[in-house]
């Protein structure tokens, strides 16, 4: 069922009201930008990627049939844009993000980042979390961002990422567990 606000906005858009799309951009631009910035490896690309999200929204909005909430559809597009960016970085510059399946088999962060090196040891706690967070596979990062930053439910995240709700719950748990363990390994002083 289409949410009433979503339906009104889509109706306006389909009638050629350019203000409808502008309203949508105004409502989501900072959120989309924030989520992308937290999800992709290179934060300076976040604004361009956010633009790409809105271009895809603009081109696809007239075909949106309301099988999900408009916001879920927008987050799904944002997720796909993040995946494309990570694939581009891998292909063009060899920047590798931890693979989903690899992480699922062994939910640990790369050892080169969790060896308790001096550089990491000197990081402030919040920066350390940031470094570790960025080492998670993109899907796990997205799940954490949508759950904690966007405060979406497991069900909504499952809908966005097109996975069963149980998988989302266990992925969230795995991601947090890996982060905690890496954090405790690097911060022996906290013991």
């Amino acid at each position: 069922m289409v949410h009433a606000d979503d339906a009104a906005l889509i109706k306006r858009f389909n009638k050629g009201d350019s203000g409808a799309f502008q309203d949508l951009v105004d409502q989501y631009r900072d959120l989309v930008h924030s989520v992308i910035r937290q999800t992709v490896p290179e934060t300076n690309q976040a604004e361009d990627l956010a633009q790409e999200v809105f271009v895809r929204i603009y081109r696809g909005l007239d075909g949106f049939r309301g099988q999900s909430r408009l916001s879920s559809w927008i987050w799904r597009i944002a997720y796909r844009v993040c995946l494309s960016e990570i694939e581009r970085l891998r292909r063009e510059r060899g920047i590798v993000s931890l693979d989903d399946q690899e992480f699922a088999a062994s939910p640990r962060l790369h050892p080169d980042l969790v060896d308790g090196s001096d550089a990491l040891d000197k990081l402030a706690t919040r920066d350390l979390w940031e470094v570790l967070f960025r080492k998670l596979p993109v899907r796990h990062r997205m799940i954490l961002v949508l759950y904690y930053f966007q405060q979406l439910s497991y069900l909504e995240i499952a809908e966005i990422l097109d996975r069963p709700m149980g998988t989302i719950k266990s992925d969230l748990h795995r991601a947090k567990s890996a982060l905690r363990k890496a954090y405790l390994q690097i911060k022996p002083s906290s013991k």
Partner: protein
Amino acid sequence: MTCEHVQELLADYLEGRLEPELQPQVRLHLTQCPDCREELEAEKALCQWLGARKVIPVSPQFSRNLMSRLGVAVPKPPRWFESLLELSNYWAPTLAALLVVVFAGRTLLGWIDQIRLFGHQAVLAVDNLPSSTNISHILPGSISSSFPLGSLLILVAIGAVTFGIIRLLKN
């Protein structure tokens, strides 16, 4: 209860969503296990960090760049103008129709009077002048001066009607 099991339940324990029968078991385990207590502290710190993430605004030119990329007109009218447009759905056609009737009628009547007056004056003038006199300079000026005002008002009325019709069609 094993450490692995307790660590799986830490998030629910912190958020108070643990099933009531599990709560004392987890609490007991935590009092006895330093590793799990450490995990609990790390979980608290992680949730705090995750929850404290702020919205990062886009640059001021974001919308402009986006709209120009899409070829969509950028300027968005101010809210008072939008409200006025909304209201115009109702008052514009009505007002426009009234304007058309009033001003068209007034102008038409004015023209008829002017023509009648002109005819009357012309007859009187011609009767009182020598036959060789050029009469073009004594034509009444009121016809030419009243015509543009009436036309202007009609044009305004037509504009208002068109505006109202466009608004109705758009909705």
